[in-house]
């Protein structure tokens, strides 16, 4: 079987599956169970200054798909609500008992040099493998000038990172908030500050739903609510893009990335790695199913690597980055056309109405004698948008077939139709 072990920003772990800083890594009890279940590492629930944070009751809410499948979770929890001393003691013990696993300590203290100068040596003394700076928490903590309030200002990110590098010899991972407009600005700032790696994403500002009888959003605290942070499967596309943006930014070239956001299967993890991540972190999937999911993730990833001849994660890490580019460099001459397999078509008509009403009227519906309809693509009209394939409930029924147009690669910067094209 393929070797899943990694060395990420100088931190070794037997596999790339780490638990993100959150309830699953709240205390020794959880972390030990996670290590027993086979997780390669954990980022301990964010530590702060004493006195510890105090949480409200009723903390999470969810966005559901059909049949109560959880698409995403929203939470209004703060950082650790246990004292610094207890956390440090437990971290020390756990690291001693599990020397082969990665143990990273997440930190969030006020944006003052002394606060960092105080806490960093205490953390280093635990024997932990690294620190992660929580510049991402989008709720509660920013109101106190921490978390996303730091992460949203590149100058602060750079400054605090620099302090950490100065007062601590451990690898420093900067955890980025997605609640910004251009993730590259934050990553560049961390890089300038000397970060050994970045991790992303933290949660996204959200309100999942509203109780229409009580006229209050979820989660409800008394008769009020507040916005929280969104995570889980639904945020994966956003996280993947942000990872890719950093991976292909020349300014942060070579900066290790730890992918986080909506990872629940080996395939999700492989995708983050293909886009440049050297390790991944998981929170929501573990919160929904327990620690046992890591076994299925490790097994699936190793088998997929075997099938593709990848002996290590490095063998395919970042392979999808070079195929990710700016829109203007895409081949304007490339053309694909939908093809509906009549054998597997179940006649639901979804592709037809989607294309007819909202796209290019490229799927003909022909009534048959028995009252059903036959659906066929009008090739001249199809622009290859994929909408029909997306709405089709049958996997592999609609195939997007690449056409041989006989035309060479041409991108928008070269296209004669572009009034601002680059002179050739």
């Amino acid at each position, binding site marked *: 079987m393929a070797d899943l072990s990694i060395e990420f920003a100088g931190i070794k772990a037997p596999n790339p599956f780490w638990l993100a800083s959150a309830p699953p890594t709240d205390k020794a009890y959880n972390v030990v169970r996670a290590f027993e279940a086979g997780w390669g590492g954990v980022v301990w629930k964010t530590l702060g200054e004493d006195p510890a944070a105090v949480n409200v009751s009723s903390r999470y809410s969810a966005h559901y798909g059909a049949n109560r499948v959880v698409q995403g979770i929203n939470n209004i929890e703060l950082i650790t609500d246990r004292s610094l001393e207890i956390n440090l003691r437990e971290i020390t013990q756990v690291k001693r008992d599990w020397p082969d696993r990665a143990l990273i300590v997440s930190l969030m203290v006020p944006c003052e040099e002394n606060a960092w100068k105080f806490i960093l040596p205490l953390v280093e003394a635990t024997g932990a493998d690294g620190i992660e700076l929580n510049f991402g928490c989008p709720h509660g903590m920013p109101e106190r000038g921490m978390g996303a309030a730091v992460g949203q200002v590149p100058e602060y990110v750079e400054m605090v990172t620099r302090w950490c590098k100065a007062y601590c010899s451990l690898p420093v991972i900067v955890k980025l908030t997605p609640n910004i407009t251009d993730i590259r600005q934050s990553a560049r700032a961390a890089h300038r500050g000397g970060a050994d790696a970045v991790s992303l994403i933290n949660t996204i500002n959200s309100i999942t739903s509203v109780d229409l009888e009580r006229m209050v959003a979820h989660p409800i605290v008394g008769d009020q609510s507040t916005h929280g942070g969104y995570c889980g499967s639904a945020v994966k596309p956003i996280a993947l893009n942000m990872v890719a943006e950093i991976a292909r930014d020349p300014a942060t070239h070579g900066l290790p990335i730890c992918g986080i956001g909506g990872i629940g299967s*080996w395939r999700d993890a492989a995708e983050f790695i293909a886009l440049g991540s050297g390790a991944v972190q998981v929170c929501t999937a573990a919160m929904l*199913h327990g620690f046992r*999911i890591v076994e*299925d993730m490790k097994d*699936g990833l190793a088998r997929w690597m075997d099938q593709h001849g990848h002996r290590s994660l490095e063998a395919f890490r970042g392979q999808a980055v070079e195929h990710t580019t700016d829109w203007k460099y895409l081949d304007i001459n490339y053309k694909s056309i939908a093809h509906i397999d009549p054998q597997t078509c179940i006649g639901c008509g979804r592709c037809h109405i989607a294309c007819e009403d909202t796209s290019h009227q490229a799927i003909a519906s022909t009534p048959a004698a028995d009252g059903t309809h036959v659906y066929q693509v009008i090739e001249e009209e199809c622009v290859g948008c994929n909408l029909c394939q997306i709405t089709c409930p049958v*996997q592999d029924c609609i195939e997007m077939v690449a056409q041989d147009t006989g035309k060479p690669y041409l991108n928008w910067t070269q296209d004669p139709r572009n009034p601002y094209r680059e002179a050739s």
Partner: protein
Amino acid sequence: MTDPLNHLPRPQARADQLAERFSDLAPPLTARQAAVESARCLYCYDAPCINACPSEIDIPSFIHRISDENLQGAAQRILSANILGGSCARVCPTEILCQQACVRNNAQECAPVLIGQLQRYALDNAHFTEHPFRRSPATGKRIAVVGAGPAGLSCAHRLALHGHEVVVFEASDKPGGLNEYGIARYKLVDDYAQREVAFLLGIGGIEIRHGQRLGGNLSLASLREQYDAVFLGLGLNAVRALGLPDEHAPGLLPATHYIRELRQADDLSQLPLADRCLVIGAGNTAIDMAVQMSRLGARDVNLVYRRGHADMGATDHEQAIAKANQVRLHTWARPDTVLLNEAGQVRGMRFARTTLAEGRLSDTGETFELAADAIFKAIGQGFDDASLADPAAAQLAREGERIRVDAHMRTSLPGVYAGGDCTALGQDLTVQAVQHGKLAAEAIHAQLMTNVEAA
């Protein structure tokens, strides 16, 4: 074995038509069906289905892996608990095992997750290029396994996995036990039983010797002498008698004898077929027999049981299959007299009506007759004492007629273990036999290895 029926005609249907009628009773899932069905699993924790599976397969995990498009991982999960997971997926009465326990199997939801079908899907589509398990370093220990049925094969595989050398002694020409010779043909089709054995042997370190019969050319004493441990997976090979005169008349035979021929026949149109037949019994074997006759083309198939529907060994699912195959079920009637024609062949049976009087089965005094060209008895298998005839074997403690074992599958003789149908533990099911074999192998391994440490 079907000689007592030689005077009967052959089926009218062509061989290819018959082959079609004996194809998969439950056809395999397609990729899409498997995707939809696997997504229905709730991935329960401490899942009730695992508890209900005699071989303790981690069902939520393997289904999760199917959903994750990791079929080899799913297959490995199944096989690590049950090396005959492929045949179990086909023959297990899931309606009383895993699927019965599925949390979706309740009145508020439509149906349990189709666990058996998904298990088959994973194993059929894993396409391993090499055997998925590696043997531990050789221990130098040698173990004798008697019987190459599910119990013996499962035990042999687990022992080989732990690095032991295994010799399997088997009386029949082919391995597989009742998977090869007993299961209804439409449940385990084509040569699956043999292919599965070949896969299992792929681990290495297992030799099967055929034509070796304990109590015949093999004695327990010599096995104990020559091997570090012995496992007995003998099954139940004796046929129970109805206890009636004329029980050996042409036209009357044990259902298992007919099924054995039916499973081995290349051309089903050459089998003797009774146009009107009677099956005595109410277990799954009785149902299998009746349904198979019906599919061969019998016009009139009657199944007669001395008690009521609720007491039948056959599950509701099996009874429904019987009804769908035009089998008539008669209850509360007991065989009374075998009726013969002038040539001395079976022409029917007289039954005495029965009733429960103060908790005891008794005759009502009424009788009735059913015409039949053949009568099949399916009133349960018995333990074949001939296997334990030698002096060492005769010492084995019994529980009823079967071999007594403890929870670690140990018999009363040190170093001798037993499992499967020949023991009194658990149900007579393939999956139970597999579990017994596995547990015995673990116990043997633990025992032999502690001896090593102590030495």
